[in-house]
C-alpha cells in the first residue's frame, strides 16, 4: 500500500489543491463581479494578494501569546493534511489506509478549534464574538456532515472515501437515487455554513458586528494572514471536491497512468468551476440570514441528511 509512487501521488494531489484553492476563490469573486455588471479583479488576483501578504510585516497584539503565532500553522497544516486524503484524481486512493471521512471531518474541526482560540487571544471584543459564533455554527454543522457522509458510507459499506467513490462509479443508478440527492443538498447547505459563504456569513463584509469567520482574523497580518486566507480557500476547495467527487464521481480514473491523471485533473477542475458558478449565482440571489435563523437552516440540512440515510439505507 505504501509504495513510493503512492506518496508521490499524494503529495502531487496536495500540491494541485494548494495551487487550485486561491484560483477557486478568485473565480467565485470574478463571477460575482460580472453578475454585478463590473469588470472585477482577474481570477488570479488571490495569488497576487497571497504573494503580497507573505512579503508584508507581521504586527502582533501585545496581549497575544505563543498560541497566536502557532495557530495559523496548525490551521494550514490540518487543512493541507485533508487534501492528501481526498479522492480527487485516482480511485484507489494513495493514502486510503491512513484516513477516512471521519478523519477529514475532525481535521477540519481541529483547524476551526485553533482559529477560534486565536480569535480569543488578542482580547478584542470582535475576536471573542467571531470565535463564539464560529464554534456555534461548527458545532451545529457537525452532526449534519457526519450524517450526510454516513448516508454514503453505509451505501458503500465503508467510510473510506476511496471505496465510496469506487462504489458510486460501479453503480451509476445508485448516484441518482434520492438518498444521494438528499445527502448532496444537506452537504451543500453545510458547505455554505462551514466555509462562511453568504447565507450564513458574508465574506466581503466590513461591519465587524456581522462577521463570523472574518472577525477572528482581524488581528492577523503579514504571513500569518496569508496562511489563514490560504487555509480557508483550501477548506472551500475541500468541500467542493467532496461535493463533486462523492456525488458525481465519473471523472476519477482507476489507473495511475500519466494520461489518465491529466484527464482526471481537467474533469476535476471543470467540476469545481461548475460548483463555483452555482455558488456565485446562489450568493447573488440570496441575502444573509440573521444569526439565529442559521440554526433553522442547519436543522433543515440535518433533517435532509436523516432522510438521506432513511431513503438510501433503511428502506432496503
Amino acid at each position: 500500500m505504501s509504495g513510493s509512487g503512492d506518496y508521490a501521488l499524494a503529495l502531487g494531489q496536495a500540491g494541485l489543491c494548494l495551487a487550485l484553492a486561491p484560483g477557486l476563490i478568485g473565480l467565485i469573486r470574478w463571477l460575482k463581479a460580472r453578475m454585478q455588471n463590473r469588470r472585477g479583479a482577474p481570477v488570479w488576483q488571490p495569488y497576487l494578494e497571497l504573494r503580497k501578504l507573505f512579503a508584508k510585516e507581521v504586527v502582533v497584539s501585545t496581549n497575544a501569546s505563543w498560541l497566536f503565532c502557532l495557530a495559523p500553522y496548525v490551521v494550514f497544516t490540518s487543512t493541507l493534511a485533508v487534501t492528501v486524503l481526498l479522492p480527487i484524481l485516482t480511485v484507489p486512493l494513495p493514502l486510503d489506509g491512513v484516513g477516512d471521512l471521519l478523519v477529514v471531518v475532525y481535521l477540519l474541526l481541529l483547524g476551526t478549534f485553533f482559529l477560534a482560540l486565536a480569535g480569543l487571544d488578542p482580547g478584542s471584543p470582535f475576536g471573542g464574538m467571531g470565535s463564539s459564533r464560529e464554534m456555534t455554527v461548527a458545532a451545529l454543522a457537525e452532526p449534519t456532515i457526519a450524517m450526510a457522509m454516513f448516508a454514503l458510507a453505509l451505501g458503500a459499506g465503508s467510510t473510506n472515501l476511496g471505496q465510496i467513490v469506487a462504489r458510486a462509479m460501479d453503480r451509476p443508478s445508485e448516484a441518482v437515487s434520492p438518498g444521494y440527492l438528499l445527502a448532496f443538498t444537506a452537504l451543500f447547505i453545510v458547505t455554505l455554513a462551514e466555509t462562511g459563504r453568504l447565507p450564513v456569513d458574508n465574506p466581503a463584509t466590513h461591519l465587524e458586528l456581522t462577521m463570523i469567520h472574518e472577525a477572528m482574523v482581524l488581528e492577523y497580518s503579514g504571513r500569518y494572514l496569508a496562511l489563514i486566507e490560504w487555509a480557508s480557500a483550501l477548506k472551500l476547495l475541500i468541500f467542493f471536491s467532496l461535493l463533486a467527487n462523492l456525488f458525481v464521481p465519473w471523472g476519477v480514473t482507476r489507473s495511475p497512468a500519466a494520461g489518465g491523471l491529466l484527464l482526471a485533473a481537467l474533469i476535476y477542475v471543470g467540476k469545481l468551476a461548475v460548483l463555483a458558478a452555482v455558488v456565485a449565482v446562489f450568493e447573488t440571489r440570496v441575502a444573509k440570514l440573521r444569526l439565529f435563523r442559521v440554526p433553522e437552516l442547519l436543522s433543515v440540512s440535518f433533517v435532509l441528511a436523516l432522510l438521506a440515510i432513511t431513503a438510501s439505507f433503511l428502506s432496503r
Partner: protein
Amino acid sequence: MDGAFAQLSMLGSSVVLIAGLLLLWRRGLPAHIDAFTLQSVALGATTALVAYFTADAELYWVAGLLVAVKGIGIPLLLRRMARRFATEREVAPYVNTATSLLVGGLLVLLAYVVMRPIVQLSQLPTRAGLPLAMGLVFVSLFVIVSRKRALTQVIGFLMLENGIALLAVLGTHGIPLIVEIGVFLDVLMGFLVMQIFVYQIHETFESLDVEQLNRLRR
C-alpha cells in the same frame, strides 16, 4: 426495468415528502402555496409514472385530474385568498421552526418503523416509497396541529389528502377512476367549506389566528 421503476417512484415520493417539509420550514403564505403546488405536480408525475410502467390507461386520467385540480385549480383559489388576507401579520406557530423540523424528521423515522412490516409484505416495485408517503401523512397532521394560521391548516389538510393519494398509488398501483373522482369531489367540497369558514373567521376576528376561536367559548 423494475430497478428504474423503483428508483423513479422513490424519487417522486421523495420530492412529494420534501415539499411537505418545506411547509414546516418556510413561514410566508406564498411559500406554502408554492410548496403545495410542487407537491401536487410531483404526485401527478408519480401517478403518471406508475401508469406508464403498469400500462394502465385509466391512471393517466387520474394523474391528469390530479394535476388539473390540485396542481392548478386549488393553488389559484388559495392565491386569491392569500392576496385578500395579505395584510394580516404573521402569527408565530406553537413550535419554532428548528424544533418543528426536527419533529418532522422524527415523524418520518416513525413512519419508516411503522411501515416496515407492510413494506416487507408487498412485492410491488414501488414498495420502497411507502414509508415516505406515510411520513407525509404524519408531517401534514403535525402541520395541522402546530400551525395557528387557518390558511396554513387548510394547506396542511390538502397535503394530508395528497399523502393518502400517494399511499394509494404506491401501495396498490392506483385505485379505479370512479373512486378517484369521488375522492376529488369530496376534497373539493371540503375545500369550499373551508374557504367559507376562513372568510367568516376573517370577518369576525379581523385575523386568521385560530387561537382567537377560543374567545367564542365565553
